[in-house]
């Protein structure tokens, strides 16, 4: 495993990771890993600026959601703060035909898929439970039960192979997102078994943000997570998840291997959850401020900004414009969230079965009559 840039320095975990942009904004041309794979990016200035815009935008929208939750407009929110590079890097690495299976935290990936960022807010506001069509957006509904989606992604990927959609550069690939804690779930390990056996065109993208709610990584494993893959017969690689360039390069390569018929890859994106697990959580109970501080120094956005500045790819006016635009999007999002209508009570009976159920229709009818009995009764 490559140690990243020679002066990547103290931020490199034991076992190393792929890094193409150091915390202080120094770009590394290319990194070659132990297995001889070389990773690099050649973005135009425009593309670098776009990546920066993505990072700033998803962070700003996330901040707006945190605020909305504090103001009681959302029941709960799972913030991606600190994981922007992992999500934008992997999200932008996806090709249009690729399918993504998120957890409940992949708002940044959703944004990079070109989806209206308001889509998941119904779930967090409590007006629905997702309610979108995974196939329309090539982005599955958020999965809350830890790990369950990794098997869905594996099955979908088996279907891609059965459809003959692998083995060429324009083949389809699948990406399954999950966290460090999820690696302990039996179902996640089963998805490794199946993907290996069926050589499924899938990328397992694990955002190791160091915590499963309050539990630090050592409650899940005593060796680096990327090493889990070898025992199932496919490669595992660790990338600096706060480095959008490296994350992009590593994910793009893994996805292309998958679409070309070379099977699964496990990517461990080494990052940090800067905020609380969710708005219901109080991280001060289980981690110390200095740890959070040390990770501030590895911030994914500031390092890209430093690079853009140093390389004169962008100037202050650009940064200001990006902030302003993101703010406008955030305010627009806020307005639309506030305008979300509450669901009609009777809709709770809808969509239980594609073909319906007479029993349930009776319950719906009784419910409607019962509701009607209160009309005008002041209820």
């Amino acid at each position: 495993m490559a140690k990243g840039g020679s002066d990547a320095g103290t931020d490199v975990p034991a076992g190393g990771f792929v890094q193409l942009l150091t915390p202080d904004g120094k770009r590394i041309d290319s990194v070659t890993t132990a297995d001889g794979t070389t990773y690099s990016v050649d973005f135009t200035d425009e593309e670098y600026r776009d990546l920066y815009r993505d990072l700033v935008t998803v962070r700003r929208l996330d901040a707006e959601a945190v605020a909305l939750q504090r103001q009681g407009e959302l029941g709960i929110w799972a913030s991606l703060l600190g994981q922007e590079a992992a999500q934008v890097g992997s999200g932008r690495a996806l090709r249009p035909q690729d399918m993504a299976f998120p957890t409940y935290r992949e708002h940044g990936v959703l944004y990079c898929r070109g989806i209206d960022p308001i889509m998941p807010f119904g779930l967090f506001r409590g007006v629905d439970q997702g309610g979108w069509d995974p196939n329309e957006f090539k982005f599955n509904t958020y999965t809350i039960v830890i790990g369950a989606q990794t098997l869905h992604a594996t099955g979908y990927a088996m279907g891609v192979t059965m459809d003959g959609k692998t083995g060429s550069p324009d083949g389809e690939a699948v990406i399954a997102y999950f966290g460090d804690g999820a690696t302990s779930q039996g179902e996640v390990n089963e998805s490794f078994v199946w993907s290996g056996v069926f050589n499924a065109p899938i990328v397992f993208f694990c955002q190791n943000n160091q915590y499963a709610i309050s539990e630090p990584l050592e409650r899940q494993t005593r060796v680096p997570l990327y090493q889990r893959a070898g025992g199932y017969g496919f490669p595992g690689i660790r990338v600096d998840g706060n480095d959008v360039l490296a994350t992009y390069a590593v994910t793009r390569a893994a996805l292309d291997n998958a679409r070309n018929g070379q099977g699964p890859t496990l990517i461990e994106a080494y990052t940090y959850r800067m905020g609380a697990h969710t708005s219901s959580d109080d991280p001060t109970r289980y981690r110390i401020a200095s740890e959070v501080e040390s990770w501030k120094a590895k911030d994914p956005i500031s390092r890209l900004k430093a690079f853009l500045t140093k390389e004169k790819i962008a100037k202050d006016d650009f940064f200001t414009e990006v902030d302003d635009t993101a703010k406008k999007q955030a305010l627009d999002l806020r307005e639309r969230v506030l305008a979300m209508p509450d669901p009609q009570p009777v809709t709770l009976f809808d969509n239980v079965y594609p073909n319906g159920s007479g029993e349930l229709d009776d319950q719906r009818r009784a419910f409607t009559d019962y509701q009607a009995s209160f009309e005008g009764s002041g209820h």
Partner: protein
Amino acid sequence: MAETITLGKALNHGLRRALENDSKVVIMGEDVGKLGGVFRITDGLQKDFGEDRVIDTPLAEAGIIGTAVGLAIRGYRPVCEIQFDGFVFPAYNQIVAQVAKMHYRSKGKLRLPIVIRIPYGGGIGAVEHHSESPEAYFAHTPGLKVVTCSNPADAYWMIQQSILSDDPIIFFEPKRRYWEKGEVDLSAPLSEAFPLHAARVARPGTDATVLAYGPMVRVALDAASAAAEDGRNLEVIDLRTLSPVDYPVIFESVRRTGRAVVVHEAPGNLGMGAELAARITEECFYSLEAPVLRVAGYDTPYPAARLEEEYLPDLDRVLDAVDRSFGW
């Protein structure tokens, strides 16, 4: 041209026809390939349809159902085989938290046409975990439909109807009846088959209603024949669909007879008989001459094989319940 075949063979024919009619139908499970399943229900199907259509899976039930969900999202119609009733539980999380809920979660935008076949019930002298009746665990779960067949003809038609349905369906197969024969018109059009989610009066009667399903239908019918000799005319209803239950047929019958006895192998406590008794009493309160009585497995784990004869409802226990109903 009706043929006389076993219930197991009828399922095999039904699966074959489903594979022929829709290239999106895939069968997956442990040992369903070369072996044809431990009960040979998928016998010959992999040979004829290939390893992509009839998939021998890793030994992991959560994996079978979880990947079936992904295949369904991709547009396939997976038919999953769980080898025995007692081995469905590793998949329980995928079934109740995912299969049952994704249509609701997606506001109806996603459909998961998944069929989960489960050989269930006792009476075959097997070791632990091979003789259970877990139907209530699934019938209590909104979002799932649950059906079970009691004879070869129903087996042949119901498995095809289930695969054709866009609802996720738990399909319980009465394993001890796999070898029982019956007439099936294999070439009749599916459209003319008796509806999937409908109960059927298996034997019309006037004096009391016996409700049974799957392996217990035969027991109920035998009990009815025996009762006839004592001049009691029992009506036997084969439920066929356990969720939703086809109540109108049941209510009509019980209003006529005034007495009802429910028979199943699963433990009585919170078994199907509980819901049936509660609903029948709500709807037929003034018609009931006696409370709805239940003949079920006892509230113990399924016992060792040499005790199952005592554990399982049989003709005598059904008649005893009928007697008690009349004696009320």
